[in-house]
């Protein structure tokens, strides 16, 4: 008999706002968090827009680092909902990508000749946010950091589920964070041909599954979930938001940048998650797709969805509103799925004006839909071919 795992706290910081409720309301209203880059002068860059995060107030423990500030803000919101979770039976697993300082920071250091401190060097470790979250939350159990590009936090949430099921811990603080909007990352991803170059219409730039899509919009943010053994949550009278019922992952083993046209990796990941949850395809009432808005990803994912779900399950990509949060997207979009179950609203894919015929899905296009669903799935597929799928369920 598997231990069941529930969610008792959620927090997020996104380009649409500080907090779950603000982001959720904005997503359902079809707003866009994409705009011209404000953090630095991007006027000469090939891509001059991004989904810059809403910046929370400084935190005493953030060491002046935006990534740490975001993850602390998301953690504070999640813990306010769940209540404190310190102790040896609480672990932490976060998805995080690179710890490299931005080009602006590096350049400034070259100018003022200040040597980096040992703390600054240690922040280059992708595990730095994990260590901080463990310290601030008082979690003394196992810590781990998953780094699989855009799949990072999806796999971190999955790791949390498995650890509680196995009895390693009773509580897991899981999620992800990423801050990538700087000149060098925009330059690099633009040269890869991965970014939308719709400079004249930033809010219309992220358009997953649309015929006129031309790339993803770089975003940034953080999402944290408090996972808990269901019986423990019931015993302490916690407010249970949803159940995390399944997790699956796969490798494409195809190419570094491209998805296999037949969607095999996506199919394998989604079927593994369904099997893990003990569900049939027709049980899923909504899919929050990875839906990056790149010419390559969307058809591949659509093929995978069609192969996995013979029925016409509603699908949307909230990256259309908040951009691609990279290592944070899996956790943030899992929270979106919980909100869809709780509020009985399916968030839309905005900018979906001419659905691409090769992505023939049952789209939730442009306007949120009312629907009572019991189970939702969220996908995250990363550069390098790592795939992760999570199943979120109404708690009975």
């Amino acid at each position: 008999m598997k231990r069941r795992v529930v969610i008792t706290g959620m927090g997020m910081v996104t380009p649409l706002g500080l907090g779950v409720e603000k982001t959720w309301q904005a997503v359902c209203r079809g707003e866009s968090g994409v705009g011209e880059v404000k953090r630095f002068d991007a006027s000469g860059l090939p891509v001059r827009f991004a989904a810059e995060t809403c910046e929370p107030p400084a935190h005493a423990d953030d060491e002046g680092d935006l990534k740490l500030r975001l993850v602390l803000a998301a953690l504070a919101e999640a813990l306010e909902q769940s209540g404190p979770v310190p102790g040896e039976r609480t672990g932490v697993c976060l998805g995080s990508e690179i710890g490299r300082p931005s080009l602006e920071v590096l350049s400034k250091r070259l100018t003022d000749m200040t040597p980096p401190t040992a703390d600054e060097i240690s922040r280059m470790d992708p595990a730095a946010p994990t260590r901080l979250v463990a310290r601030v939350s008082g979690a003394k159990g196992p810590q781990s950091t998953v780094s699989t590009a855009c799949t990072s936090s999806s796999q971190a949430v999955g790791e949390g589920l498995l650890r509680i099921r196995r009895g390693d811990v009773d509580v897991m603080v899981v999620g992800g964070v990423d801050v990538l909007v700087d000149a060098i990352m925009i330059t690099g991803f633009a040269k890869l041909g991965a970014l939308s170059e719709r400079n004249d219409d930033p809010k219309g730039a992220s358009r997953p599954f649309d015929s006129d899509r031309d790339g993803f919009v770089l975003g940034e943010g953080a999402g944290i979930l408090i996972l808990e053994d269901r019986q423990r949550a019931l015993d302490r009278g916690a407010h249970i938001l949803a159940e995390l019922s399944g997790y699956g992952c796969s490798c494409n083993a195809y190419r570094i940048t491209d998805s296999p046209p037949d969607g095999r990796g996506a199919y394998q990941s989604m079927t593994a998650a369904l099997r893990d949850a003990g569900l049939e395809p027709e049980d899923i009432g909504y899919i929050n797709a990875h839906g990056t808005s790149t010419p390559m990803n969307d058809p591949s994912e659509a093929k995978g969805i069609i192969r996995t779900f013979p029925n016409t399950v509603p699908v949307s990509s909230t990256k259309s509103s908040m951009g691609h949060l990279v290592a944070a997207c899996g956790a943030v979009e899992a929270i979106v799925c919980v909100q869809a179950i709780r509020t009985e609203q399916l968030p839309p894919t905005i900018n979906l004006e001419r659905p691409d015929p090769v992505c023939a899905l049952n789209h939730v296009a442009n306007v949120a839909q009312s629907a009572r669903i019991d189970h939702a799935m969220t996908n995250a597929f990363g550069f390098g071919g790592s795939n992760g799928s999570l199943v979120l369920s109404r708690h009975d």
Partner: protein
Amino acid sequence: MLLVLGDRTAVWYFLVMTDATSVVVTGLGFCTGLGPDPWAAMSRGETAVHDSDDLKELPHKTAAVVERIDLRPWLKRRKDRKLMARPSQLALAAGGMALEQWSGATDALGLFVGVGREPGDDGESEPSLVAAQVDGRLDQEAVAGPCRDLYPPLLPLKTLPNMALAHVSIHLDIRGDNGTWCGGSAAGLMAMRAGIWSIRERRSVGALVLAADSWVSAGCVRDLLRLSKGERITSPGEAGVAVFIESLASAKQRGAKVLATVDVSSELESSRKMVHHGSLGDCKAADSLLGLALRVKQGPGREVYAAQELGQPPVAVGLSIEESMACYSAERKVLTDV
């Protein structure tokens, strides 16, 4: 032989251990400064820790460098090597070796990788960053112009931490359960732990567990010196290590030679002193899995021979900003301005 890994609470399954839930090692692969069989070399008292040309101007001068990484048996396309940072190359070489004894399909295998911080880019970004600076300051026009033109388009995809997993999965055609763990020297054990559970929970029929890291460049050694705050550092090393695991039932069915049993238990292996540091250097994220794999290679009843660390002068710290940021800064020559 029973090897133990990580967790104090996972006691219950000892009660129900069967051939299907017992996890065994049936393949090993090494890419180290002492070659593909470091145990044999260590037994002869050899060490890979030597003076390194790259470090001659730094206070710490020795490292255990892998002289040659032969990827030809594993690469699907030879040009793909250019896309690989050094840890990815080390991982692929070790992974291919450990998988040689597996004759079954690879698409249902799991792949679990322990890595360190973001690997360096071998200086490929330097020309663009040099071009982006005017009088030591970032110049936005230069970023948009000459910097952009010089920036290697695939660079972000070379240095992401998950690229070792990506390249190994592509070239060895592994498609199942997976993950990449970052977390200092314990990363390899975290990967091993995930692999054991993946077998036990039947999410994988077998799994390749890998760890790879490289700290032998001047930039890495500078960071180590700064972090040491005046203390002597262990000579850095680099390694790729791979352990192939499967259930005992699977090994019996295909007649595979069982090298060891692996399990989880209450003690973190990574907390023990790594006896191979004197021979292979401190390989950071590869360290704990390297220690485990050497113990498998060592077999029961034998002790790992620990070569003596080479004599090193006391380390001076307080290096300049240019040194610690050489991989980003203007010219290569700053590497030598100690």
